């Protein structure tokens, strides 16, 4: 079918001075082949020695970059226009030795990519035999670097799959230690690792999976002070965090450093994933300009999470990270993937860049990192209010032992009550506290407790606001503190 190819000014001298040339072709690649077979001088400016398009040559079919369609296989039909548009790149001599890797980030060209040893060729054989990855793609993976924020539920499958796939350099950021309650989902850590720093345990597992991966551990909390300096040293950032301040911090730091942010989040049975990349689509703030009020969205520690869920979402993040490095079409940009594990349903929402976005919009107001704890309202949580009367687990035990008349109200959920109780406590879940206020004897001293002390503080506040006349005392640290200080036979969860 006849299509028109427009020739950029500097190349017209190799096309007999013509600005447009018509050829018959059914794909963009075929059209370029025909063009360069009749005008052979053009070929060396458009293609490299491996017969791939030079990385600074952009080909558009009508208005669509073929990189975002099917590459050279992008179909063309009668009347279509193929545009050859150069990107202009260059620079000083200092880094010439790594120019190949540096030649345009994830879509980098072929020249100076690292070579694979025979051992690596054997290891990556199932990648190498697919043209979508192939030798060039595998070398891109080796040249690439990925920073993982968190080595928990999402970070576990991510780190393991990225390492297995042959990503050359992996950075791990975490300051937490492995707890027994992590093992239900964080499969990068094992039973023997309980009590160890997560990054040490994750490093051992990754080294075991693939010794060719260079691992950089950052035993620190990600903060506004260190994020930018960390991010600039990596090609792709993957967000495996579980809280809003860090999520906004990762987003803003990615926008400011121009890095793609591979996002995932999980709660109970539901997960989300997307690629936030301000150069190509929306950022996290375009989707959620403001964080939810503190306490409205419970964390996994409060609400629970199905162990396999982060495995699924983390594997999707690993998949998209690898595609970004390979320069694959159809990455999860401009789309939010929603997954419901309980109903086994995937849904997809279209996302749009918000031109008024404070960080990636037309006139950004956020030009440096801010205080994200304050932005998310974390500093005003109710449990920090000094007016609430508290008692420690040890003190409570002493008073019960000396026979004081105390009633204990447990405001957790029934399925938590089943795991373990403080003796002689009465269960009234937080959501029913006001309706069942008459079941609490206002004439007796009342200790209120939950798992950690947060929900019981809310219960006391609500009761006091509703005019409950009795004496209410919060159990500091909840039943967890009771187990730690008084009765270790009560299981912690």
């Amino acid at each position, binding site marked *: 079918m006849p299509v028109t190819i427009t020739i950029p000014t500097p*190349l017209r*001298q190799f096309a007999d001075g013509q600005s447009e040339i018509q050829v018959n072709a059914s794909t963009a690649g075929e059209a370029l082949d025909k063009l360069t077979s009749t005008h052979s001088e053009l070929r060396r400016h458009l293609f490299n020695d491996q017969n791939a398009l030079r990385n600074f040559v952009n080909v558009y079919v009508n208005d669509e970059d073929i990189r975002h369609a099917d590459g050279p296989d992008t179909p063309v039909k009668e009347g279509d226009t193929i545009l050859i548009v*150069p*990107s202009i*790149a260059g*620079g000083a*001599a200092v880094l010439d030795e790594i120019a190949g890797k540096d030649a345009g980030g994830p879509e980098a060209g072929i020249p100076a990519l690292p070579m694979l040893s025979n051992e690596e060729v054997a290891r990556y054989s199932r990648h190498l035999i697919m043209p979508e990855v192939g030798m060039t793609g595998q070398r891109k993976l080796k040249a690439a670097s990925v920073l993982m924020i968190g080595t928990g539920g999402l970070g576990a499958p991510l780190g393991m799959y990225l390492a297995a796939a042959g990503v050359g350099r992996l950075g791990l950021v975490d300051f937490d230690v492995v707890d027994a309650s992590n093992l239900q989902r964080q499969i990068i850590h094992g039973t023997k690792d309980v009590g160890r720093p997560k990054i040490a345990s994750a490093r051992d597992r990754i080294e075991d999976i693939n010794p060719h991966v260079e691992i950089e551990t950052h035993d620190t909390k990600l903060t506004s002070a260190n994020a930018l300096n960390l991010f600039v*040293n990596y090609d792709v950032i993957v967000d495996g965090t579980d809280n809003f301040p860090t999520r906004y911090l990762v987003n803003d730091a990615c926008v400011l450093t121009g890095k793609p942010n591979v996002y995932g989040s999980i709660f109970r049975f539901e997960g989300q994933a997307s690629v936030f990349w301000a150069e190509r689509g929306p950022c996290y703030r375009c989707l959620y300009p403001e964080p939810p009020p503190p306490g409205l969205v419970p964390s996994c520690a409060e609400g629970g999470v199905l162990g396999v869920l982060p495995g699924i979402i983390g594997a999707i993040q690993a998949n998209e990270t690898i595609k970004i490095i390979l320069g694959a079409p159809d990455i999860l940009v401009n789309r939010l993937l929603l997954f419901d594990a309980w109903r086994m349903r995937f849904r997809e929402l279209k996302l749009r860049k918000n031109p008024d976005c404070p960080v990636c919009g037309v006139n950004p107001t956020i030009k440096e990192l801010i205080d994200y704890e304050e932005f998310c309202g974390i500093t005003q949580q109710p449990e920090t209010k000094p007016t609430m009367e508290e008692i420690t687990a040890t003190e409570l035990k002493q008073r019960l032992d000396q026979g004081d008349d105390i009633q204990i109200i447990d405001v957790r959920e029934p399925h938590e009550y089943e795991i373990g109780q403080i003796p002689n406590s009465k269960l009234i879940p937080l959501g029913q506290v006001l309706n069942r206020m008459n079941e609490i004897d206002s004439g007796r001293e009342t200790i209120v407790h939950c798992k950690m002390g947060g929900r019981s503080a809310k219960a006391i506040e609500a009761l006091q606001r509703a005019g409950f006349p009795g004496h209410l005392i919060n159990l500091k640290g909840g039943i967890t503190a009771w187990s730690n200080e008084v009765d270790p036979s009560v299981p912690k969860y």
Partner: protein
Amino acid sequence: MIEIADEHLREIRAHGERDYPFECCGLLIGRFENGRKVVSEPYAISNAREEAAKRNRFLIRPEELVRGERYAREKSLDVVGFYHSHPDDRAVPSKYDLDHAWPSYSYIVVAVEKGHAADLRSWEMESDRSRFNEEQITT
């Protein structure tokens, strides 16, 4: 050969100093005249490279170039070349520049030493991509 006014060369030098220690870049808008290029104005572009690479790399995205070409066409002009700076390096194209160059265009390189514009030279690539040839600048 490239013809460009003194005031435009001053603009290019000033852009290089302004963006130091990063590389600056821009388009040269003008006309091709019998193998000669006549610049009517430089057109500054923001360097699209990420912060870490900006010290020794520049990138002009195709969208930016298309915008520059549209602007030129409105004035019945063409993009005839590009300029960029080499912070603390010579005004000589690097191997990287050669690997990414297009024929016919002029490539003006300005060296910026410790924040001050120094040597400024213009180059055109040999059409077999083997090397850059320095071209004469007339004002």
